[in-house]
């Protein structure tokens, strides 16, 4: 601190966080609203349609989506461990934990792609499905597709951060900011999983 600049001169940090972190938080809030809008659109279509399909069996669909939830939750834990290793200055350990996080994300994507293929083979397209309200496919694929896009970009983002941090080009704050993004992707799934899968378990 060179001098006691006033708040108007940019001298104080009202949130006491670096601007990278504040930027990521603002992105997360706007992205959270995008996902909320898609979840509300899905729920609106579902409420409005008496013949909404409930195609998911406890096995395989719910079992696999539970394993996917486990993958994401566990990858969040490995991510916080990466962040705390990074802040302690243990670069090797941090990179190792980030790689574990990426593995969890990849497992999620593979299982989810498998789930998509299963639905596509049963005849679900964006505007048609064999069971009832045609909008099921459109809302389902948009919602889970955007989430899968976030997981894939998250894995790429973490790969870049791991490489850069390992080589000493990034600081521990960059790891923490990428961690914020990763936890957000996990957080969104905590709403998609119950609303899309658990609420649509096939009856009888």
């Amino acid at each position, binding site marked *: 601190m060179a001098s006691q600049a006033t708040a108007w001169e940019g001298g104080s940090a009202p*949130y006491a*966080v670096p601007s990278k972190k504040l930027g990521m938080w603002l992105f997360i809030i706007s992205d959270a609203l995008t996902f909320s809008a898609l979840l509300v659109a899905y*729920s609106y279509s579902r409420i409005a349609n008496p013949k909404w399909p409930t195609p998911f069996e406890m096995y395989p669909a719910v079992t696999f989506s*539970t394993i996917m939830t486990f993958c994401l939750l566990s990858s*969040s834990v490995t991510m916080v*461990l990466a962040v705390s290793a990074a*802040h*302690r200055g243990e670069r090797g350990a941090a990179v190792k934990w980030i790689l574990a996080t990426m593995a969890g994300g990849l497992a999620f994507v593979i299982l989810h792609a498998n789930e998509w293929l299963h639905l596509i083979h049963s005849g679900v397209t964006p505007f048609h499905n064999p069971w009832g309200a045609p909008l099921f496919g459109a809302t389902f694929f948009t919602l889970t597709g955007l989430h899968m896009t976030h997981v894939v970009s998250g894995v790429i983002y973490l790969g870049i951060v791991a490489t850069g941090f390992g080589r000493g080009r990034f600081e521990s704050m960059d790891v923490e900011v990428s961690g914020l993004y990763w936890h957000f992707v996990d*957080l969104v799934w905590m709403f998609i999983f*119950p609303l899309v899968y658990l609420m649509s378990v096939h009856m009888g």
Partner: protein
Amino acid sequence: MSEQHGNRIYLTVWFWLLALTAVEVFLAYKHLPVHTMLVLLMSLSLVKAALIIAYFMHLRFEKSSLAWTLMPPLVICIVLMIAFSFPDGLRLFDMRKG
């Protein structure tokens, strides 16, 4: 910063998140009535979201002005979306049913 609390708290949070997920899956297995399911699942998911935001995303340990700036607008916008669309969805449901 994270040096002040050990990694143990994260593992505890992870355990609770997994436990709450197990409860959710069990509820789905029990085939409860759809309204009961919705209320229970959303309440559990809100608890899980709060745990993730507070501990994994570290918001509990930031200056409180950050949380007060970020969270109320988010909550208000989501509540508005729900308040505008769900009554209309129910209206359509009643029209189509009859």
